[in-house]
Each structure stands twice: as C-alpha cells, then as structure tokens.
C-alpha cells in the first residue's frame, strides 16, 4: 500500500554508526549509483576473507529478509556520502527507526525514499526488544499517519512535513525547483555585483 513501509525489523543497536561503516570507502571509487549492495555494511557482514560473519544480525535467519532496521543513537553520522543511502536501499532496506539521525544522512535518505521515523528512546528500546524476537512478524511504518505498528502495539513517530510529503509523492526536487526559476531569477536580480561569485578558471 502506498505511504507504508512493511517488513521485518532487524535490531542494530550500535550507537554512532557512521557512513563509512555503512559504506566503506573502498566501495566509493565509482562514478555510478549502482552496484553498492555488496559494499553496504561490508565490514560487519563479511570478514577479511569475504566470508559472512555469522554473528552479524543481517546474516542470521530470519533477519536476512529484514527491510527495516531499528538502530542506536546518531545513526548516519560522519561523511556526507550519499552512497550510504544508495547502498542501504540496494540491500533492500526501506526504513530505519531511530532516536535521531545526522542531518546530511537524513536529507540524503529523503531524496532517495528511505524512511527515517524518529521515536523516543523508550519507544526505540521497546522496538529493539521486539525486533530481537525471531518469531515476531512484520512491522508497518505508516508514513501518512506517522505511526509504527507491530502486533498490538502502535507508536507515533516524528517526521517533518516536507520529508513526509517527499516520501509520499516520490518527487524530483531538482525538476520541482526549476519550476521556481522566476523566483530564483528575481533573487539574483537583487544581488550586487560583488555578491555574484565568479570563480577564476
């Protein structure tokens, strides 16, 4: 159903997971957005010999099928690399539930349709507890109504209006903003000459 992310939650409690952990630098030597699934969380998923680490949650049943992560505080900190979001999406992740996200990562997620519901520490801890239960069923992130549902539990989450609208409409910001070209030209016409930066080639 549009406006919803539905799937299995995986617990990923480590705090301050930075974008280099999400997408290690050696996978960034690319000019494409594609082919990043294998690199996503690579050092947690695989050992030095590229064998799966059995202790990592996404390598364990049933969480190999997870499409939602419940994460520790400050997920997505560090480098601005959008590759981290592209990689999570290519790995099949559609939602990340946390108490707060680094700003650039949050904006990158919105641009790519990755839902980042923000909940209180208490709700996050409760969802983390539930996510650890391999028997638990699918979780639903209802973006329209800003609500997470699992079993008989329903928890509201925070998401600003613009992010919610972007996720629901899946729009192209660049093309949308170009429709405002007259406003941009109007702003520019008010700039003094020395406010129009001209970089020396």
């Amino acid at each position, binding site marked *: 159903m549009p406006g919803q992310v539905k799937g299995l939650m995986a617990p990923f*409690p480590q*705090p*301050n997971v*930075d974008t*280099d*952990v999400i997408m*290690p*630098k050696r996978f*960034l*030597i*690319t*000019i*494409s*957005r594609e082919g990043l699934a294998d690199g996503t969380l690579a*050092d947690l998923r695989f050992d*030095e010999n590229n064998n799966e680490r059995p202790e990592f949650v996404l390598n364990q049943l049933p969480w190999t099928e997870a499409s939602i992560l419940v994460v520790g*505080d*400050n997920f997505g*900190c*560090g*480098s*601005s*690399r*959008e*590759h981290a979001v592209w990689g999570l999406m290519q790995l099949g992740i559609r939602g990340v539930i946390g108490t*707060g*996200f*680094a*700003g*650039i990562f949050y*904006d*990158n997620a919105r*641009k*790519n349709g990755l839902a980042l519901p923000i909940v209180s520490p208490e709700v996050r801890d409760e969802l983390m507890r539930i996510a650890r239960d391999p028997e638990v069923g699918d979780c639903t992130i209802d973006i329209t109504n800003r609500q997470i549902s699992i079993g008989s539990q329903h928890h509201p989450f925070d998401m*600003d*209006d*613009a992010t919610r*609208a*972007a996720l629901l409409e899946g729009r192209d*910001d*660049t*093309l949308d*903003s*170009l429709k*405002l*070209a007259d*406003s*941009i030209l*109007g*702003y*520019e016409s008010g700039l*003094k000459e*020395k*406010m*129009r*930066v*001209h*970089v*020396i*080639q």
Partner: protein
Amino acid sequence: MTITLYDKLVDAHKVCDLPDGDMLVYVDFHIMNEYTSPQAFSGLDQKGLKVWRPEAHLSVVDHVNATRQRDPHDDASKLLIDNLENNCKTHNIAFYGLGDPRQGIEHVVVPEQGLVAPGMLIACGDSHTTTYGAYGALGFGIGTSEVEHVLATQTLRYKRLKTMLVNVEGALTPGVTAKDIIMKVVQVVGVGGANGYAVEFAGSAIRDQDMSGRMTICNMAVELGARAALIAADEKTLAMVKGRAHSDGIDFGGPEWRSDEGAVHEQIYNIAAQDIAPLVSWGTSPDQSVPIDGLVPTAGETSTPKAKAALERALDYMGLSAGQLVQDITIDSAFIGSCTNSRIEDLRAAAAVLKGRKVASNVNAIVVPGSTYTRLQAENEGIDKIFIDAGFDWRPESGCSMCLAMNDDIAMDGERIASSTNRNFEGRQGRGARTHLMSPAMVAAAAVKGHLADVREFRNEGAE
C-alpha cells in the same frame, strides 16, 4: 528585534518559502570534489539540464589522489579524477586539478583563494564544509542529489535549524590549541548532541583564536552533529579575506555578520578555557577523549549497561585496557594533515616541536600539507627541512590522504596512529586501524617520543 547570526544568514539567502514548510535558499558558491559529484553530473545529463551559473562553482581534486607523487596511483582513482575534469570542461566549471598550483584540500584551498567571506552561503558535497563558519559565512555539507540540485538551480531546499551557543571564556593554558577547544566541546555536547542545530561559537577564547584556529573549531563542529557552525566576523576575519586572488570580486558586507546583542539561542553551553587540557582521543568516536596526562576511562559504577557495552567495544577495537596511562600508549605512525589541521599555522606549530629532534625509530611519520600553496609557503619558510631532518615523510602533493584513506595511504589492521585529523571511527584510516586524534603539535610530540606524549613537556625542555 534581535536576531542570531545564523538567522541573518538564512534570511539573506531565502529565495522563497515552499508549501511544505521548507524554503529555497540561494547558494553563493559551491565546491565539488571527485568522489561525491560524478552521480550529480550524470543526473543532470539524464534529465537534459544545464548548470544554472557555471561561474559560481569550483571543482578541486583532493579525496582520492596520491600525495607521494602527482600521477594517480591506480586506474580507479584516475577514472574519478578524469571524470571530474571532463564534467567541468563540458559544463565550463573552474577545475583545480593535479599539478595546478591552486590544488589542495578543498577547505584549505577556498580560504587561500579568497573564495569565502562573511555573509556568504557556501555548499559542498563534504561534511566538513562547516569550516566556513569561521568567517561568519554559512557553510554546510550536502549529499550528491543536492549537488545536482545546486548545479541545476543554484539553490537548495532548506529547513531552518535551531541554534546553539557555545561560549568559551577566558585564556587557554600553555600547550592548549583550537583543536583541544573543539575536542572539549565534542566531549561536553556529545556526538549527535547538536543534530538539528547550527552552533555559534563565542567568548574570549574563540575571539583570541586566529582564523586558522577558528577554522579548526568550525570544521569539527560537524562531529557534534551541527549542520552549520558560526563565528562572528571581526577585524581578523576582514584582514584574512584581503589580498587574495578573488578578494576584489567578492563583498557580502563585513562586521554586521554577527548575532545581535541579546539574540536568543535554544541551547547554551558555557565552557571555561582554563578547564581545557591538551586532549587525545582514546576510543572510536570523537567525543571519547581524555587529557594527555590522564587515564583510559573505566566504566564507572553508575554506567548503564549500554554505556558499558559501548566502552568495552571501543577499548576492544582500540586494543587498550581500562585505566591504563594514556602516555603509555605506543604508536606506529604519526600523521599531520587533513582539512582540520594542515594549514601553514599547523605546520609551524608541529615544526616548533620537531626542531632539533628526531622521530622515534618505531614511528612512521607523514605530513601532507593542506594545499600546494601551503606546501610552497612552508618550503619558503624552511619548515619542510625541519620535518625532513626529524624523519618525517614530507609529501610533495596535497590532498586528504590518510585522514580517510581513500588514496594509497591506508593504515594496516591494528596500526596505531597519532593523527591531526577529525574522525577516529572504526576503520576510518584503514580496516582495523586505531586512530588517536590530537593537535598537530601533539602529533609531533608523540612522533618524537614513540608514544602519546604531553606537548607541554616539550615546551619546558625548549625553555631550558
């Protein structure tokens, strides 16, 4: 009406409000590098769009290039570098590539070239774009989709942030630097403590800093989660923007770029300068730091299970024991470089420690000047000789290098590095690499001693 510097900057750049609560802001100047821009250019091409104002952008090669020699060290990095050059040619954008005397780390190049001034809004596909707050300019990092957006529209969709004021009052004690100030702030506010905020730094200890120190402070504000950092413009700022390649062509005003007296911030922190010691990080997050004469922390009795687990994980990764003396930590490598601490002032501070001394035999020491211009300036001052005589590898090319190890400067598994950089995350300088963050002078002190060392002891020796 009293307004914060942050709100003045946002108001001055607002193009229009958007129906969903965001606004469109105008980007005066936009910087690109070779690794976060390729997909932005291909996005433009796929949509058949032009660059709105090509002259308002600059591309610099810095993240993946080798610094041992000018030529790319492998085909993959060459592909990224050539791709950026081709994109700039196609779209008529200024390109400071390998061999260009203006090339270097983007956030070192921009101030050198006079491309930042008070009152500007500057965006770049790099999180450390907060650096420009040191000039009373609004600088912030953006993702690749936003790079495409700036290229096509010269604007960004923007949500106004809350503001936080961090006051650092008083005089610093000897041996304490701007790096220690910001590491202390990260400790106090916490990583992520400023998510959703623009942070303004104020107080006499901030005003006393030169522009290089102010850049170090604003640069690492992103480690708090701050999307922007700001320091009011003053006479030091105005002096710094003069006499540079772009100075005559750029003027957004001057001392009015400051918060009004009595402007209200949502959060305020007060830190006494005298309480700040030379700091080193011991863990895997920039807030995990202690004074150089301290101990690796022990989980206190009041620690939550979560905090204990985080501490144990960090100690395990770093190969350290709780309660051990910080100065007993032996290092394998020393690295001076990065957009945080590779300016001429940083090189001078490290050279003052190294002069007449030798790097310990167990240490591999590297220095990568922040830009070609900085390197030549240092060589003119004879600073290169001090580094080389001490046993440092003085790199002939500039770039981010071992700060994030995207070129061939990759630390080995378990390698322990005293580093003047900004992040000590797991794997930052190489898979399994162990980073200790500190000021450039402290890196030099550690390189000489072969273990983490107190720069204040060197000052005493020097005075004898």
